[in-house]
């Protein structure tokens, strides 16, 4: 993931990669991202410590924060492939996520009546990894079905078609007529309004057990990595700090760490894709489809491929996001989740991968998790005061100069107000910084650097002068 290396390889010399935000010149995007993440964690820790949050709660919050950062960063990377690279205005993201989660659930849930599950409807009882692959593929297939007719349309029409599609997906999941049927002897279904209980093996546990296979062979044990290392060493060690039931906290952290690794994978894949000849055609389509067409590229094919891959990745993000929640209901998948991801991408800057990750982190830390954390912290500090139940009761004392009930009501309804804030942030961004933090900086289209090599007086930065020599 070294920025300098791959930047040089494809002719994006470090000059173009320079990240300047708020007057501070960072050497490259990666450094800036790390600085920012560090800053976010310090703010969270400080806020918790100052107020005297219990250690367990604080650790849970940090684990949660990491989870959200990873999830939103992955989702905005996938969206960046659509919008940032190809210029496809997809606002049906949540539909692809829902497809991924539901298909994974149905494939991997235990078989109905097998005695391992009390759920109303069962699944096919396949291993979880098959379910995850199946869910990802299903989201990609839905993308293909949507893409075939829709990609011929103008950007704003595509937007309306995709959001309508995501609502159609939600209505189908809600529908009673698909809630449960016998298929080839299995009782499966979408569960209707009650949703689906995701009672397959815990993803973290199955991952660690799978990784444990080579060790098991050598040591002749069952699930050595899970039983002896994870439960025996890691969890026991944390028990020194959190004596009371430390496993959920550790699980939280471990799962978030896995997500961060997958995020790294996303980044590499999408960056690789964007810098390949394939990606250059995508960018050309974004800038001017007619010209690209005239140059002999089958733009429709490129758009369909990009759309399908992006949708599959969105499905995967959905699985990673909702797959560990124990159960899902159709109404979780409302269009607002789509807009969360759009806001994250726009904050970071469409077209930039490091920007997408950064946007995801900023969104998760300050707009999504931040207000809730803030509410928790303040309420703990004030000793959980009673808030008025309606705007009227909150406003009544204001006429007498008492604004405390109003402030308490505001704090209490922070979950609604954070959506209001997101709207305002979106408006301000589009006014002040439509390209986001790192979006749409100049990228040379040639495969060798066009800038004059700069003579440097020693030092770390090496300008890649041999850029174009290496082949793909």
């Amino acid at each position, binding site marked *: 993931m070294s920025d300098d290396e791959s930047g040089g390889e494809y002719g994006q010399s470090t000059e173009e990669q320079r990240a300047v935000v708020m007057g501070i010149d960072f050497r490259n995007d990666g450094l800036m991202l790390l600085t920012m993440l560090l800053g976010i964690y310090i703010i969270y820790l400080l806020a918790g410590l100052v107020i005297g949050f219990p250690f367990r709660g604080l650790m849970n919050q940090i684990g949660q924060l990491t989870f959200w950062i990873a999830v939103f960063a992955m989702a905005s990377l996938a969206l960046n492939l659509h919008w940032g690279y190809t210029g496809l205005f997809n606002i049906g993201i949540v539909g692809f996520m829902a497809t991924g989660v539901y298909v994974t659930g149905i494939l991997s849930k235990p078989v109905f009546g097998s005695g391992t599950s009390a759920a109303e409807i069962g699944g096919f009882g396949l291993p979880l990894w098959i379910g995850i692959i199946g869910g990802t593929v299903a989201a990609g297939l839905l993308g293909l079905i949507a893409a075939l007719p829709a990609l011929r349309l103008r950007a704003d029409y595509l937007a309306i078609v995709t959001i309508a*599609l995501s*609502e159609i997906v939600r209505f189908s999941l809600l529908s009673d007529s698909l809630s449960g049927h016998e298929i080839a002897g299995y009782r499966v279904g979408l569960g209707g309004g009650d949703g689906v209980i995701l009672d397959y093996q815990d993803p973290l546990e199955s991952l660690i057990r799978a990784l444990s296979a080579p060790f098991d062979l050598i040591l002749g044990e069952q699930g050595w990595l899970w039983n002896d290392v994870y439960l025996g060493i890691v969890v026991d060690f944390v028990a020194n700090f959190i004596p009371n039931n430390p496993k959920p906290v550790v699980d939280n952290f471990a799962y978030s760490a896995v997500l961060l690794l997958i995020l790294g994978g996303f980044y590499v894949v999408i960056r690789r894709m964007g810098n390949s000849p394939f990606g250059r055609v995508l960018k050309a389509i974004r800038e001017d489809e007619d010209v690209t067409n005239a140059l002999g590229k089958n733009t429709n094919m490129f758009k369909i491929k990009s759309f399908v891959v992006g949708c599959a990745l969105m499905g995967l993000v959905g699985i990673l996001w909702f797959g560990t929640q124990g159960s899902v209901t159709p109404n979780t998948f409302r269009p607002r989740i789509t807009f969360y991801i759009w806001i994250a991408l726009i904050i970071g800057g469409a077209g930039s991968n490091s920007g997408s990750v950064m946007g995801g982190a900023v969104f998760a830390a300050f707009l999504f998790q931040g207000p809730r954390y803030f509410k928790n912290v303040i309420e703990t500090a004030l000793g959980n005061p009673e808030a008025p139940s309606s705007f009227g009761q909150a406003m009544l004392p204001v006429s007498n100069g008492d604004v405390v009930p109003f402030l308490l009501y505001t704090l209490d309804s922070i979950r609604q107000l954070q959506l209001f804030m997101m*709207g305002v942030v979106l408006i301000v961004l589009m006014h002040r910084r439509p390209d986001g933090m790192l979006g749409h900086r100049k990228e040379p289209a040639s495969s060798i650097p066009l800038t004059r090599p700069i003579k440097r007086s020693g030092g770390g930065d090496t300008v890649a002068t041999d850029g174009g020599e290496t082949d793909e």
Partner: protein
Amino acid sequence: MGASSTYDRARSQIVEKPMTAVLGIIAVLLVFDLVRQLATGNLTIARMMSLVLDGVLRGLVIGLAGIGLSMTYSILNFANFAHGDYITAGAFSGWATTYVIAGGFGSAANIGSLALVGSGGSVFGGALGINAVQTPLAVLAGLVVSGVFTVALALAIDKFIYKPIRGSGGIPLLITSVGVAFALRYVIQFVFDSGTRGVTNTGSLPGIRPNVIDGTVAVTAHDVLLILVAGGLMLGVHILLQRTKLGKAMRAMSDDEALARITGIATERVIRSTWIIGGGLTGVSGFMFVLWKGTISWNDGWLLLLLIFAAVILGGIGSVYGAIAGGLVIGLTASTAVIWIPSGFARAAAFGVMILVLVVRPQGIFAGRSTA
């Protein structure tokens, strides 16, 4: 014209437009199934007429709100995703007025609760006896306020939010409008709370139940009022756009803004008129929608928005008649789809119709006959 040339033409049509042919076959099958259901008694004629009436009324609301969306879409060239929340804002402003007047300016209940449309279950519209016959003045005042308030809101949002970035193209404006939608919707939720509440007294609402062949079809006074208000406003817009210079200027602007400005059309004034007409109709449609269905909720407009988009695209962007016709088609689809498919898919069917039209005829049914 011999039979063979007609046959040839039909064949070439099928080869050229396979999607259209498939849709035609599906339509024929649906009609056959309808006849079968009527013949076997699965579906009574009275029930079918009730569904059609429901669809027409729903379609009128969608069409009325769609006119404004269609006008701004064609003149300012962007899909306004905040339009649905203009509807909600109009509805709440109008109903706050209706509540305050029907509640005797605080004599029947706390004025704060009245102005917040009974948030938190503090006042109920049924208890105040609100309907078009018992409290005509309150309803009329609410209708006017909803229109006026939405005009003011639309103008203010345009001035401070859309106008500064109007030059940057349709997609940035669209994204901004999503931000506006979020901000508006959650302010409304913050102030008026998230509960859905009944606002009308339906018990004493006069209506007729005429006997149709095998049952009855209920028509209430609110249904009639909706038809009158929506029909009247649509006719008014038609006359305004056909008989005045404003209509001509609007058509010129949606064709080519630069050319319109060069010929001396005051484009900024035309844009303002667009927001005034569109905003007014939108607010009124929100008020009438709530009066007709009897409940109000903070996301009414948002839920209606996609249907309105479907109607506007179906009718062809920029066409007032298209928006009305598209509204009726979408309303009828959403209401009568339950004849053929499970009720959970009724709204999905309306979206499906929109997607199909986009695929088969992306310019819409009425395209090329733009009226505004």
